[in-house]
């Protein structure tokens, strides 16, 4: 089988395409990949001469040659190379993130033919340059040697030709007969693929596409079907919302499109303006979510109470609006002051408020629609002219499919990115159902829970290997181009469907054809087709003028479903994990070792419960607890979580994936190494997701939890949860450490005065150690903007080749992340407040680490960096002891870099550190050097913004500013001088180069604060 490599496009044409993204911080976006002809020629040369070299780069090429399916054409090296590619210089390709259906814009950094980093695409209308941890980490899955490398027929490896002939003949039988063919898809965003699926299914008498989402939002679509006559999922525009009432919608964490929502949310918080302004987020939730941790006000309610409190809010808003939706339950005024207050606030900001709800309950969503309608948010913060096209799942369709399967009506079931056996195990007896379908085909890249039950597995490419497109919002269509030749003998879904329709076609041709017919007419009808295509490739997305059909008038639904009584029994709530989502990325060790932003647990999912509930049951952190009454019993370790409802226990989805067993081998082996993973990493709690009244429900009432008596130690990266330290024997007060400063919007001026009055820097006895002729690099981190999402942690891990050390090492306090996010709680119960504080090397001017190193392995550079010289380090660890921020990381062992495929992800600009040396954040010195060289080549001085460290680049909230502190006009200097700025541990006179900006909340009920 010969898959034509995709880089057939004419490279010279591509070069003529002007870069449409900023000239300096980016990257030439040549539209096409490396010219693989050149690469192949060189590989062939190596093969032909039998030249086996030990050098990394050559070994890399050799490896690629082992996997590349391309034929050998010439056996001579391309000495001149190609104009487009210079060895050692990265190329950047605009693409669309394949991590989840949110469809953020991404840039793939390709070095010497291999993608080594994914970053946010600057200027993307949704993600605005940000990219979340999952989006960045899914790069690593490209190099996963455990992906399926060949198609499988009845669990046996076959060639595509064999597979195609078998499937074609079986499908031919179905085309002539009357068997029902179903495609079950999840996260389908590609319009070309959708069109192809439609064409494919049209060949059958009974062919249907069924879509589902593991975390379903189909109630929102159903509610809009009722109120607007169309199953819309609006695009929520948080940048247009001054007041947000969010009912269990973790929009900054995991809900729908968190990167876009975070960017919008941040845009509304203009704290540096002359008159600081900030939106107000009121989070009404049962557990502590990431959004709750950033909320300006937080109200803890039981999940069962959400419809009831929505009813009360609707009641108060409707009284203000003068329109009373029918069926509203009666409200006792005395008890509901806070809802009246919230209603008043929303009403005051009608037209720029927003009500969102994250549950899958139709009545709640109808109330949300009514509220947004009364508050005139439709057309403003709730955009239905350009609604969201992702998350098309329909619970009803899925349940219908399960019934059809149960009746044995289905002749062929094709699964596209669908893993219902893992994701929704309790809604149907999948194993027996799949067994009785004559033809089951999965496109899964792994032999996952579902694929292993399918007769045919036709492994799909990794998103970076193939062509694709995505339309996640009406009028915004993005293109995905391959960044590397497929590593294995995989094939895209598009190609497979085309082949099985008897019209095999190149993916690029299929997509281009679709774009010419369906995209260009709406985007650039007058442009030359080639020009349009190439400019679309270069920018990664196009905006089309298309809008959704304008819905008719608002149909006022009855509110009768909301109910007025609340039964607050012990309830289990399943939420997607902040680290691995709903499980699609659980096979990614980067994500497994990413500390959950709130619990700080790695390598496990836990059951969280409130301190009071834990005390009542005598449960402590790490006690294994059995959950009964929510499907099959689940056993999970418990973790006490502040700010949670006392009658709610929360569990994270996404763990317990088949295939994660292998992670028990991650980490160094030595005599006291402990093996913690008994089987898969974590437990699958999706068994608790049930279809109730035709809808997937993620909370289960009336459960019981019991301690099993067993202990399951948890690998937490942070042991101390608060800044308040115990102070026995001493008078009360001053027990709070001041590393995190926070205030409210109204108190900001006074606070700022106090903050700057606090420290009087004393004059130095010594002249400055280091001449300031060079730029002095510095950073400002806005704690108010930081949501703790951990995108920066992942960016740093990918950029700086940070090893994964495994659960045992994390438990021993030896995780290697150069950038961590400290999370501190204050207050209890509903008053719990959370601070997220990214902590990385502050490149101190008077660095305590530098004075103590006996061998000068850590020294100060002229441009203000605290440099770590790996090959001089002898590993005394004195520097780490003396680092007040504890950001230095020691190589306790030789961390394995033995997987030759996985090593392809390493950034060649950053050294792999050996055992026994210290390492730490460098402010991405390789990027500084690159920008400096580029400026020099271009004969210009470095401009502000030329350099973006990896953490800054991907931050969805743009919480990080980097630049030259010696230039008073630079963005970082201005941010450093801003009123909220302070330096952690400034009193030690270590002169950190990182300034933090205090957290500002704008709670409801607070007087003052200039509203926008």
């Amino acid at each position: 089988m010969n898959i034509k490599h995709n880089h057939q496009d004419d490279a010279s044409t591509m070069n003529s395409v002007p870069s449409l993204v900023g000239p300096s911080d980016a990257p030439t976006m040549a539209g096409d990949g490396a010219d693989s002809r050149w690469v192949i020629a060189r590989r062939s040369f190596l093969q032909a001469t039998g030249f086996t070299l030990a050098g990394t780069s050559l070994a890399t090429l050799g490896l690629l040659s082992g996997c590349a399916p391309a034929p050998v054409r010439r056996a001579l090296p391309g000495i001149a190379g190609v104009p487009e590619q210079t060895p050692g210089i990265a190329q950047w390709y605009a693409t669309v993130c394949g991590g989840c259906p949110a469809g953020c814009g991404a840039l793939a950094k390709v070095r010497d033919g291999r993608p080594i980093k994914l970053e946010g695409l600057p200027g993307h209308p949704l993600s605005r340059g940000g990219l979340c941890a999952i989006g960045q980490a899914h790069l690593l899955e490209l190099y996963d040697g455990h992906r399926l490398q060949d198609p499988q027929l009845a669990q046996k490896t076959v060639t595509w030709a064999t597979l195609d002939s078998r499937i074609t003949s079986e499908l031919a039988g179905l085309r002539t007969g009357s068997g029902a063919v179903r495609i079950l898809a999840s996260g389908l965003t590609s319009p070309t693929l959708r069109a192809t699926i439609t064409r494919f299914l049209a060949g059958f008498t009974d062919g249907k596409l069924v879509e589902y989402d593991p975390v379903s939002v189909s109630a929102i679509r159903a509610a809009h079907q009722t109120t607007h006559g169309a199953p819309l999922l609006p695009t929520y525009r948080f940048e247009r919302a001054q007041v947000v009432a969010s009912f269990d919608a973790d929009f900054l964490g995991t809900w729908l499109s968190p990167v876009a929502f975070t960017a919008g949310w941040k845009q509304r918080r203009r704290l540096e303006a002359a008159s600081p302004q900030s939106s107000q987020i009121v989070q009404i939730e049962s557990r502590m979510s990431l959004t709750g941790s950033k909320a300006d006000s937080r109200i803890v309610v039981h999940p069962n109470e959400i419809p009831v409190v929505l009813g009360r809010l609707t009641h108060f808003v409707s009284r203000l609006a003068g329109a009373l939706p029918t069926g509203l339950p009666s409200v006792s005024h005395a008890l509901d002051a806070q809802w009246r207050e919230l209603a008043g606030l929303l009403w005051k900001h009608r037209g720029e408020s927003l009500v969102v709800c994250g549950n899958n309950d139709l009545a709640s969503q109808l109330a949300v629609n009514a509220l947004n309608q009364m508050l005139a948010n439709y057309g403003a913060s709730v955009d239905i002219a350009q609604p969201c096209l992702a998350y098309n799942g329909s619970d009803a369709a899925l349940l219908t499919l399960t019934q059809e399967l149960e009746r044995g009506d289905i002749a062929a079931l094709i699964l596209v990115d669908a893993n219902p056996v893992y994701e929704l195990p309790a809604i149907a007896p999948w194993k027996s159902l799949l067994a009785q379908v004559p033809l089951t085909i999965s496109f899964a890249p792994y032999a996952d829970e579902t694929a292993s039950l399918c007769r045919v597995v036709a492994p799909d490419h990794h998103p970076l290997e193939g062509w694709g497109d995505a339309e996640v919002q009406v009028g915004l269509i993005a293109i995905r181009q391959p960044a590397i030749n497929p590593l294995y003998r995989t094939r895209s879904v598009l190609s497979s469907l085309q082949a099985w329709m008897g019209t095999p076609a190149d993916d690029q041709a299929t997509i281009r054809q679709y774009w010419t017919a369906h995209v260009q007419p709406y985007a650039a009808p007058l442009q030359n087709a080639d020009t349009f295509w190439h400019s679309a490739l270069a920018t990664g997305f196009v905006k089309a003028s298309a809008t959704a059909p304008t819905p008719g008038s608002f149909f006022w639904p009855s509110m009768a479903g909301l109910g007025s009584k609340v039964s607050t029994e012990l309830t289990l709530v399943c939420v997607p994990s902040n680290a691995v989502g709903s499980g699609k990325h659980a096979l990614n060790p980067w994500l497994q070792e990413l500390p959950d932003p709130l619990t700080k647990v790695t390598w496990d999912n836990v059951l969280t419960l409130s301190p009071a509930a834990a005390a009542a049951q005598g449960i402590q952190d790490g006690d294994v607890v059995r959950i009964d009454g929510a499907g099959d019993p689940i056993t999970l370790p418990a973790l006490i979580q502040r700010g949670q409802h006392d009658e709610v226990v929360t569990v994270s989805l996404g763990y317990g994936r088949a295939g994660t067993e292998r992670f028990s081998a991650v980490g160094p082996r030595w005599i006291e190494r402990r093996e913690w993973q008994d089987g898969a990493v974590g437990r699958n709690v999706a068994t608790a997701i049930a279809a109730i009244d035709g809808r997937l429900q993620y909370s289960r009432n009336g459960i019981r939890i019991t301690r099993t008596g067993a202990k399951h130690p948890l690998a937490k990266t942070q042991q101390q949860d608060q800044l308040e330290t115990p102070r026995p024997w001493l008078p009360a007060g001053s027990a709070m450490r001041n590393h995190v400063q926070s205030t409210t919007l109204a108190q900001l001026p006074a606070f700022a005065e106090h903050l700057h009055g606090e420290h009087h820097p004393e004059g130095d006895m010594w002249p400055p150690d280091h001449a300031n002729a060079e730029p002095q690099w510095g950073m400002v981190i806005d704690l108010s903007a930081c949501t703790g999402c951990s995108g920066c942690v992942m960016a740093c891990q990918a950029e700086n080749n940070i090893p994964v050390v495994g659960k045992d090492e994390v438990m021993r306090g030896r995780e290697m992340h150069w950038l961590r996010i400290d999370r501190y709680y204050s207050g209890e119960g509903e008053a719990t407040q959370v601070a997220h504080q990214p902590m990385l090397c502050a490149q101190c001017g008077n660095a305590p680490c530098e004075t103590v190193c006996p061998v000068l392995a850590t020294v100060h550079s002229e441009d203000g960096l605290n440099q770590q010289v790996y090959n001089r380090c002898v590993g005394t660890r004195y520097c780490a002891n003396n680092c007040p921020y504890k950001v230095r990381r020691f190589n306790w062992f030789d961390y394995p870099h033995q997987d030759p495929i996985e090593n392809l992800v390493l950034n060649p600009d950053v050294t792999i550190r050996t055992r026994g040396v210290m390492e730490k954040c460098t402010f991405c010195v390789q990027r500084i050097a690159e920008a400096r060289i580029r400026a020099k080549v271009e004969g210009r001085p470095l401009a502000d913004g030329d350099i973006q460290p990896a953490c800054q680049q991907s931050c969805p909230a743009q919480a990080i500013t980097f630049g030259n502190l010696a230039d008073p006009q630079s963005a970082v200097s201005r941010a450093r001088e801003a009123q909220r700025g302070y330096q952690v541990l400034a009193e030690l006179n270590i002169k950190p180069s990182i300034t933090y900006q205090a957290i500002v909340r704008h709670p409801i009920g607070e007087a003052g604060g200039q509203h926008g």
Partner: protein
Amino acid sequence: MANTESVLRLSLLGQPKSPTQVTEDIAGLLEKPIGIGWWVAFIPAVALLILGITTVSYQISTGIGTWGLNKTIGWAFDITNFVFWVGIGHAGTLISAILFLFRQRWRTSVARAAEAMTIFAVMCAGIFPIIHMGRPWRFFWMIPYPNERGSLWVNFRSPLMWDFFAISTYFLISLLFWYVGLIPDLATLRDRAKPGLRKKVLTFFSLGWDGSHRTWHRYEMVYMLLAGLATPLVLSVHTIVSLDFAAGIVPGWHTTLFPPYFVAGAILSGMAMVLCLMLVLRKVLHLEDYLTLRHFDPMTKVIIAVSCMVGLAYGTEFFTALYSSSQYEQFIFMDRATGTLAWGYWIMVACNVVIPQLFWFPQVRSNLGAIFAICVLINVGMWFERFIIIVSSLQHDFLPSSWSSYTPTSVELATFAGSFGLFFTCFLLFIRFLPVISIGELKTVLTYGRSSGQEGSTHAE
């Protein structure tokens, strides 16, 4: 022994001895077949040494990760053991050099063994800074040697650098001092030895000693000069070791009190260790006539003095923390006394400050069993002192997010045991092959003590 009698009137020996008897007693120990007791001690010591060598080899080949350290706690057992052993060494130099200069004649019987202890303890100590490195095979980078790497030099601002100089100087001077003191005795042994290898070796090392007045004169001059050279080292070495901590900014480390505090602590632990060893030697080698209460009594009094100094330092630390108004300092001391390592803190206070006060009682000072027990406890307490200073300060420093805890691994425990193996192996070889008491010097104090002046006046050289 009448209470009214001045201590200066007491003889330094249990029984009056003639110079010949002294030579017979001390040198004779080395010429008899060794008793089973020595083997009973030597075999476990060597076993521990082998255990230590094995674990250190494993650690060096596998990584420092085999220790219980983490991102917050970069030093624990390694540097604790280092300071512990350096501290033990101090009493040897104190006794042999400072007390020599102060003409404390009672030191004669204990000086040799104490100094041997110093050398072996410093050897044990010196191992830890090397094996605690991530890349111990690069330890020579700590030496400021001319190199081909341009101007690459060491960091003279780093206390670890100073440490390197301090420890190596201390070891060299101590070794030299000890060896010079040994020369007359080596000559005595040479003269008694039968022809053979032993005699050849002794001949070589006794450097042609001829026992003439001129030789004695020069010997004594050199010995005194070396004593003068070694004296400041007693203070400087532990001062510099303490600067490893004091020069850091870690709360609980960053204090100017450390140099005197550490020196006092070192003398406390060293004296305790000397007493332990001497009490055992006295019993095992039947040196009851040479090691008497007249020796142990002043040493226990030194212990009272330094124990009080250490106690004062403990108190001063708390006062400084309270007075500093630094919440980090205040927290760390409260945390030491009440936090997760409080048990270790109170072991330290009890063993180093409270229990040694028993030496105020003459009954305790004259009870050898009690002295031994107290001295063992002091050594335990002094080990904990270093452990508490290092670990409790590191584990709970500035940012609560990084707070951590420490548990030693089996590798660390075995390495610590191995250092005892090295120490006792060396010490046992020392008592087997070299005179444990300076024969030549002892002969000068045979008549010490004015109450027995008549006998004393009989001495004739």
